[in-house]
């Protein structure tokens, strides 16, 4: 009898202790009072646990070229999705990270619709950056042999990408599935008393508490991404980075705050830090700082600020607090570069933000990323030129400059293969936009109209087609997407360390997919350099600073700027080189901007009144996309001086290089389909490159964030 009583008591104690533990934890999670923080020490941080993913490879006997101290331009793409991304898999993509790296090295791989995707010229570096969120999970849902696929939420995905299911017809259904993934359907947590909730808390790994999550599958997908990157990394020839996308957004407005994270090592954490851990980018930076303390260096790179509803480059923090110097330093420590251009539009500036810039209306994508129905994205706060200006204003009000970043481009392809060529374009999302009818550049055939209606219903879009002279077109929104872009690093050699270092010191530029290369220097004695000397570049490095760096005031002298641009050897000739200046006035911090043409093609000279080159007369034929021959330049080189320079004014300068006009992909598509191009789309565009800025600093006391690149010393002053 007595024994029984004891047993009863014990049995009673177990649930009570369990409940008490849970109660304590909930206090600790929702109530930050220090009384309970003792309990926090029992937590381990799974996202900071490191794994060495390096691959055993035979020692290469290959001769590697000596590092070039004048640096080479390496072209790459650091924004590539494969089948491990929850959405790419839904789009019919079966390309693995290995396929993606093979593509970058010049091999052809297959598009989900069956045609070959192949680069005209291989790339120098590449990083597969699948969505960290639910990485590898959708593939596991689709594979009916896994345990997790037997759940209800996994049913819609079953056998999704079997070859027989890879059809254009399935686009509508796929889109609907995609929306449901984004929705809450699969994000249901286990009930609060479930042991996995406890485990999630103790290892700071929220996703463990989700019903639809399988940690083993997730970890193995991530391990495969890391293995593949290490496998394909070939110092001297081809560089890869372990990477992933931190796919966060603002809560109610759905403002896109996506960032790609890349690692400068073959060691990486056991799992990526994702939006399930936190939606707040500041927490991402805290995690990156934590990794850096452990010797793992990373950078994160924001993209599609154009679709952020003005929230990527806000004047306040994620939680609505004031930006301060600590915030600015933390952001700049972790986010030295921003992706200015990619398939979902270009984020340099917007016609509403830069009404005096004739080239501002370029590949504008004015919807919030992933919004259903497609919803307008407010321009202000979403474009890099304005962010540079706002950064100066924030600095003026003594809050630090969180927007002192360099520029890169990348593709954001979801097929493993970046689409950079207007004349050979497959867009981004596999089956959804892999054909010209689906992306709205060729009229819909009879049978396709009904499909498009279903598809648009899934997209929650009220108007599914638009009518023009040539017929009825899909109103998919894909017409605002484009064949862009590339990241270019000025690095001593093609190795992970060297290219990563270039990213950190912002010695980078972005292109819209073309292989334009551009040098940019500023200094006080650059005019003395002989522009026809072979030592031109080494002298420029000696006497000045290059893109991404700060130029400090030197006895109020006016600086010289040296620009040298070379055309893409397979692309159109160059039309002009421009310098874009932004500054704030020293009374109120009011921002201003101005676009100066610095060098013109065909020996033409800049009109000093308008700061514009005369028209060089380059034309494009809309019937066959041929361009004028013998017009434009193979290279443009000049020393430029700011006609309105004031040594007391804080400013930045960046270069924009423009090619002669060529056909846009939508025009190529229309011609291939035997139609006239749609009259509401730009028929031509000017491919371009943007350098990272050089910031002019009037006084040393103005530097609130120490630049990572070189600076010119102030001398004795």
């Amino acid at each position, binding site marked *: 009898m007595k024994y029984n009583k004891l047993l009863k008591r014990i049995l009673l104690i177990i649930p009570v202790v369990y409940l008490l533990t849970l109660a304590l934890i909930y206090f600790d999670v929702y109530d930050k009072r220090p009384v309970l923080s003792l309990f926090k020490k029992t937590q381990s941080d799974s996202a900071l646990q490191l794994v060495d993913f390096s691959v055993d*490879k*035979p020692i290469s*006997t*290959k*001769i590697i*070229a*000596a590092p*070039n101290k*004048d640096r*080479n331009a390496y072209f790459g793409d650091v924004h590539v999705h494969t089948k491990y991304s929850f959405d790419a898999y839904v789009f019919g993509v079966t390309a693995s990270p290995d396929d993606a790296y093979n593509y970058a090295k010049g091999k052809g791989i297959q598009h989900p619709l069956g045609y070959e995707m192949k680069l005209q*010229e*291989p790339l120098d570096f590449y990083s597969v950056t699948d969505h960290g969120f639910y990485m590898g999970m959708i593939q596991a849902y689709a594979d009916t042999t896994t*345990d997790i696929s*037997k*759940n209800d939420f996994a049913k819609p995905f079953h056998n999704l990408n*079997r*070859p*027989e*299911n890879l059809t254009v017809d399935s686009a509508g259904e796929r889109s609907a599935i995609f929306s449901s993934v984004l929705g809450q359907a699969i994000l249901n947590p286990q009930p609060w008393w479930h042991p996995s909730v406890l485990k999630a808390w103790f290892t700071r790994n929220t996703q463990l508490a989700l019903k639809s999550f399988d940690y083993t599958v997730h970890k193995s997908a991530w391990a495969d991404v890391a293995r593949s990157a290490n496998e394909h990394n070939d110092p001297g020839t081809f560089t890869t980075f372990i990477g992933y996308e931190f796919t966060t957004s603002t809560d109610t407005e759905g403002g896109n705050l996506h960032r790609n994270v890349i690692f400068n090592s073959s060691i990486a954490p056991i799992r990526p830090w994702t939006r399930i851990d936190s939606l707040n980018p500041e927490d991402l930076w805290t995690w990156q700082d934590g990794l850096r303390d452990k010797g793992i260096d990373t950078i994160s790179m924001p993209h599609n600020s154009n679709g952020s509803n003005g929230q990527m480059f806000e004047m306040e923090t994620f939680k609505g607090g004031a930006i301060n110097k600590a915030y600015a330093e933390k952001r700049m420590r972790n986010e030295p570069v921003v992706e200015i251009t990619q398939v979902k539009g270009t984020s340099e500036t917007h016609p509403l933000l830069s009404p005096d810039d004739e080239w501002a209306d370029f590949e504008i994508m004015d919807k919030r990323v992933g919004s259903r129905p497609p919803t307008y994205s407010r321009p202000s706060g979403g474009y890099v030129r304005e962010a540079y200006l706002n950064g100066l204003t924030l600095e003026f009000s003594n809050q630090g400059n969180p927007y002192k970043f360099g520029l890169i481009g990348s593709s954001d392809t979801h097929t493993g293969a970046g689409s950079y060529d207007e004349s050979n374009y497959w867009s981004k999302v596999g089956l959804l936009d892999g054909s010209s009818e689906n992306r709205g550049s060729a009229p819909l055939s009879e049978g396709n109209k009904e499909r498009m209606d279903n598809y648009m219903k899934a997209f929650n879009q009220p108007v599914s087609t638009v009518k023009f002279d040539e017929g009825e077109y899909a109103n998919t929104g894909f017409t605002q997407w484009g064949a862009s872009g590339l990241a270019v690093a000025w690095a001593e050699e093609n190795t992970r360390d060297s290219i990563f270092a270039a990213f950190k010191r912002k010695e980078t530029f972005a292109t819209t997919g073309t292989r334009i*290369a551009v*040098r940019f220097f500023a200094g006080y004695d650059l005019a003395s350099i002989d*522009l*026809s*000397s*072979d030592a*031109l*570049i080494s002298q420029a490095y000696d006497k000045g600073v290059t893109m991404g760096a700060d130029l400090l005031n030197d006895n109020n002298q006016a600086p010289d700027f040296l620009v*040298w641009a*070379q*055309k893409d*050897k*397979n692309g159109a000739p160059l039309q002009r080189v421009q310098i874009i200046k932004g500054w704030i006035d020293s009374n109120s911090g009011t921002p201003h901007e101005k676009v100066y043409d610095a060098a013109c093609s065909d*020996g033409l000279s800049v009109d000093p009144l308008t700061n514009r080159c005369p028209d060089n007369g380059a034309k494009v034929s809309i019937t066959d996309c041929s361009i004028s021959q013998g017009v434009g*330049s*193979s*290279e*443009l080189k000049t020393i430029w001086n700011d006609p309105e320079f004031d040594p007391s004014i804080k400013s930045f300068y960046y270069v924009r290089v423009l090619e002669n006009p060529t056909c846009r992909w939508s025009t190529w598509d229309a011609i291939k389909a035997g139609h006239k191009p749609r009259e509401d789309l730009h028929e031509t565009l000017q491919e371009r490159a943007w350098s990272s800025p050089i910031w002019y600093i009037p006084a040393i006391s103005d530097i609130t964030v120490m630049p990572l690149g070189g600076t010119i010393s102030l001398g004795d002053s």
Partner: protein
Amino acid sequence: MKFKIFIFFLIGLFIYIIDIGFNSDQNSKDIFISDQEITSLISAWKSQVGRSPTDDEISRIITNLIEEEILYREALLLGLDKEDRIIKRRLAQKISFLKQESLVDKPSNNDLIGFYNANKDKYYIQPTFTFKHYFFSAESNSGERSQAAYKKILNNDQDIKSDPFFLGKSFSESSLDEISGNFGRQFSLNFNEVILNKWLGPFKSSFGDHIIFIMDARAGYYPPIAQVLGKVEVDLVAYEKEEAVSNYINKIKSEYKVIINPNLKFDE
């Protein structure tokens, strides 16, 4: 008594024969459900729900199974499987997997050597060139200037006025692919026949004209198999898998006669 049983037996036999006669295909309407099939369904149910199914639930599982089988058979009877691309592809895929998976053996050393020898070009290390050049930009009359400069060089005149090239003056250990990447395909063809330590040109690139001086050329070579063994093995396994399927197809292709309308016109 025994006779009565015999009568019944005869009647039974009679009915049986008539039945066979009238419903000769009746046998195909039997549905056999094996114990294994049921237990595997039940265990799948268990792993999903976390408990054993009740009797009711078991009978529902079995009913579903039966109904699925019936619908499947009726569909077959109606010929719904015919000319269905999805079913065709699925079956084709199944048999390809089957043929691929029958090969799981690790390739032997002899296989590897054989494969390496047969595919040597895949592992070829490209020749490299160390060279410098005078560049004449297309921006300023490069054709004439480069011709004049070349004449000067022939006359041992060292005072050559050339332009700086964007990627520099000297290139070391550049492969043909790298040269083609930096100067364009056309220009790289000039390295097919190499004369060392002599000014050559002028040669056209996408950017202007060049007079080149090759200091060193390292011949291309086939690396010893030991250096590329890992890659050879991966390639061989992939090759064998593809081979297995195509061999299989080729083997049975001869048994088929393909008939295609030779006069078919495609709609443009």
